[in-house]
């Protein structure tokens, strides 16, 4: 009758299996996070992509006034700051308030070879796309053999 309570071996098996599943989902967890990394779910979500000639940063920040976005680069440190004010309707009953409201600031450490003088940014459909270029000397170059 109490077989399932005394059979610890299979219980530990079960835990081990769950741990493995978690590791598969969230990475091995052995790599410590970067010093400027933030907790999951921080506004706005960011993607960073690398190509041969540059690095692109995408901020998924809907409902911003592009003029209010403050964008700075110092060497390879990119800082994006701004504020999103979601107006609250005083006469309404709120069932859900999941959208971020308030000031935000994120610092993104780009690779060292980014040229801080050639950075462009555009805001479309709620996505801020920042395009950077690598310094000429850092680009992979084909060397011709004489």
């Amino acid at each position, binding site marked *: 009758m109490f077989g399932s309570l005394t059979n610890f071996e299979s219980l530990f098996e079960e835990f081990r299996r769950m741990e493995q599943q978690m590791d598969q989902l969230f990475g091995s967890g052995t790599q410590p996070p970067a010093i400027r990394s933030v907790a999951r779910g921080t506004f706005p*979500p960011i993607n960073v*992509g690398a190509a041969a000639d540059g690095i692109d940063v995408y901020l*998924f920040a809907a409902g911003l006034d592009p003029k209010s976005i403050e964008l700075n680069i110092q060497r390879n440190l990119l800082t994006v700051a701004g504020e999103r004010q979601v107006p609250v309707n005083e006469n*309404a*009953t709120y069932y859900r308030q999941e*959208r971020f409201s308030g000031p935000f600031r994120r610092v993104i450490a780009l690779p060292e070879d980014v040229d801080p003088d050639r950075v462009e940014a555009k805001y479309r*459909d709620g*996505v801020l*796309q920042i395009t950077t270029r690598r310094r000429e000397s850092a680009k992979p170059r084909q060397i011709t053999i004489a």
Partner: protein
Amino acid sequence: MSDKQEVSKRDSTEIERTDRDSSFVMLPPADVFEDAEGITLQLDIPGVAKDRLNLQANKNTLLIEGTARIEMPQGMEALYADVRSTLYRRSFVLSDELETDKTEANLKDGVLTVRIPKRAELRPRRIEVRAG
């Protein structure tokens, strides 16, 4: 019995996750509020343009679906990604007093606003209290 169902459900989401771009669905954050005239929903769906938004309101359900289009140079590799999919989907069960035929929607800078009015005859009426 119910344990088994849980496990099989979890397995299927894992399969969805490995096939990132095509089938992993993101749940966009939403604000939902109600006033005397109707219900308003606001959702953040950054990257979705008007032509890639699918909004369906039938008698019972409101379905919001959108695909984000992100301009990316060829051969780009992800160094870091908070957003691992391009598909947003969220649905809500509606109630009888809402007039879904008169649903209005507006998409601006990745914020979708949906307004569903209440039937006029079902709007709350203020009841006068007379001093006797």
